[in-house]
């Protein structure tokens, strides 16, 4: 295969060469790109190519050997346990509404009711008299699975008004329609709020949706960003994953609005 790495460790740990291909989650791809760049600086004979395409593609490619490493913004499912996942960062999923929306808090039940179309006016949950536009994600998306899992509902019971793909799609949709509600990666939302996009993160229960609360583990709807390999990754892949999990990249993780994972875990897990 053209993507197989020929990474080999020569002269000890510090001379690596070869090419690594990563594919998968569009959430992880920007972070992986930045880490790869730093890794290439440290190991000038190594090329790390980061491709995108979605978590599902990452997992499939890793399994088929099309990619050395897959990226996924979700946990592996039971039928994927032939693969190994390596956490490199954490992320939370928070509910967003338009900035002008006065609603200050939603209970889990209210969220479920809204997403199942049993509640469809903001005035019923402490807002203005405005219809609720429900922004939902497409089947298979990692954020969607986390969201459904947290609310403990089945996807077919959801009655959405808009289905979006990527996080920014959700953000732009909510920013463009006053009565809408959606859910996105908290990091994304924070970055956009910082950039002046008119959206607001809603607390979940009474817990503020913020990367800080994801980091300290209090925010309930959190997820891990993973790198996926077969049971025996190549030495170069292993070295890269190790690097991704090291504190050397924590600044990069933060700059991409994710939460570094505190303890350095072992590559082999």
């Amino acid at each position, binding site marked *: 295969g053209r993507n197989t790495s020929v990474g080999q460790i020569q002269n000890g740990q510090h001379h690596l060469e070869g090419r690594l291909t990563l594919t998968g989650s*569009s959430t992880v791809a920007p972070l992986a790109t930045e880490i790869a760049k730093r890794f290439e600086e440290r190991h000038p004979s190594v090329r790390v190519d980061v491709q995108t*395409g*979605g*978590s*599902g*593609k990452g997992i*499939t490619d890793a399994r088929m050997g099309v990619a050395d490493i897959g990226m996924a913004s979700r946990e592996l499912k039971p039928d994927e346990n032939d693969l190994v996942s390596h956490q490199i960062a954490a992320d939370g999923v928070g509910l967003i509404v338009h900035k002008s929306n006065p609603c200050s808090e939603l209970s889990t039940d209210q969220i479920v009711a809204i997403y199942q179309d049993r509640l469809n006016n903001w005035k019923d949950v402490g807002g203005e008299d405005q*219809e609720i*536009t429900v*922004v939902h994600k*497409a*089947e*298979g*998306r*990692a954020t969607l699975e986390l969201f459904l899992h947290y609310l403990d509902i*089945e*996807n*077919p019971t959801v009655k*959405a*008004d*808009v*289905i*979006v*793909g990527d996080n920014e*799609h959700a953000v*732009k*949709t909510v920013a*463009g*329609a*006053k009565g*809408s509600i959606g859910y996105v990666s908290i990091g994304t939302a924070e970055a956009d709020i910082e950039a002046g996009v008119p959206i607001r993160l809603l607390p979940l229960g009474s817990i503020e949706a913020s990367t800080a609360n994801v980091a300290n583990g209090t925010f309930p709807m959190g997820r891990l960003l993973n790198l996926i390999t077969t049971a025996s990754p190549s030495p170069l892949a292993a070295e890269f994953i190790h690097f991704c999990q090291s504190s050397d990249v924590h600044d990069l993780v933060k700059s991409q609005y994710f939460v570094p994972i505190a303890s350095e875990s072992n590559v082999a897990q």
Partner: protein
Amino acid sequence: MLRSDLLLKVACRVLAIAAAAIVLLVFGFLVRESAPALRSIGLFRFFTDASWHPLSGEFNFTPMIVATLLTSVGSVCIAAPLGIASAVFSNFYAPTWLASWHRRLVELLAGIPSVVFGLWGLVVLAPLVAAFGGSGQNLLTATIVLSLMVLPTIALLSDSTIASLPREWILGAAALGLDRWDTVSRLVLPAARRGIGSAVMLALTRALGETMAVLMVAGNIVEMPRSVLSPGRTLNGNIALELGYASASHRSVLFVSGLMLMLVVSVLVVGFSRRTRSPVG
């Protein structure tokens, strides 16, 4: 025949066949990838299932086929009059200098990425359409955005068809005292209808095939549309939205929607070429 001519003839034939073979390759690829789903699910259930929830084993395509046809046919219905008017404008109504600027602008727009159209639709247009309620992401918005994307195709190809009509006809019409609009409506447009027809056809196939821009503004709910303000999902939007996250069997089902779309296009193309081949009066 000379050796060089023979060489040219053979080369052209071979390359032309190669070009045509690409379609077969694409078809073959789609069939191969969708075979598992067709085998395990069968064709029937794609039309009879209760809804589209592939992870829960429900695979109804019908709303997506309807949305695909609605948005693409609708967009052509908007773009065709505007595009033809624009071609008539630059040939008959605009002063020469303006005509060439007009052409240049339309040419430029032919090259704007669909993402940019989608982005404009999402950020500028949808909030305006949201005044009618909801998020503003619905079939209407998608149709408008699509019509803008295919408009340059219709305008440019109609323009060149009209420009290539024999000048004698136009002089003849003028000599009979036909005014400008009579000349256009009774002579030019009928005489150019084949070329304009194939421009519209190309635009329609283009609209059917467009993915990213529609995905960004259509709302993507899989439901039989009740009005133009209902959100809807197109077949290719469906592929783009779910493919990256699909597991093996789900993936195969998505390829069935690709295959479906190609069948729709083929039927339209063959139907159209049948119609235009019949002698014109």
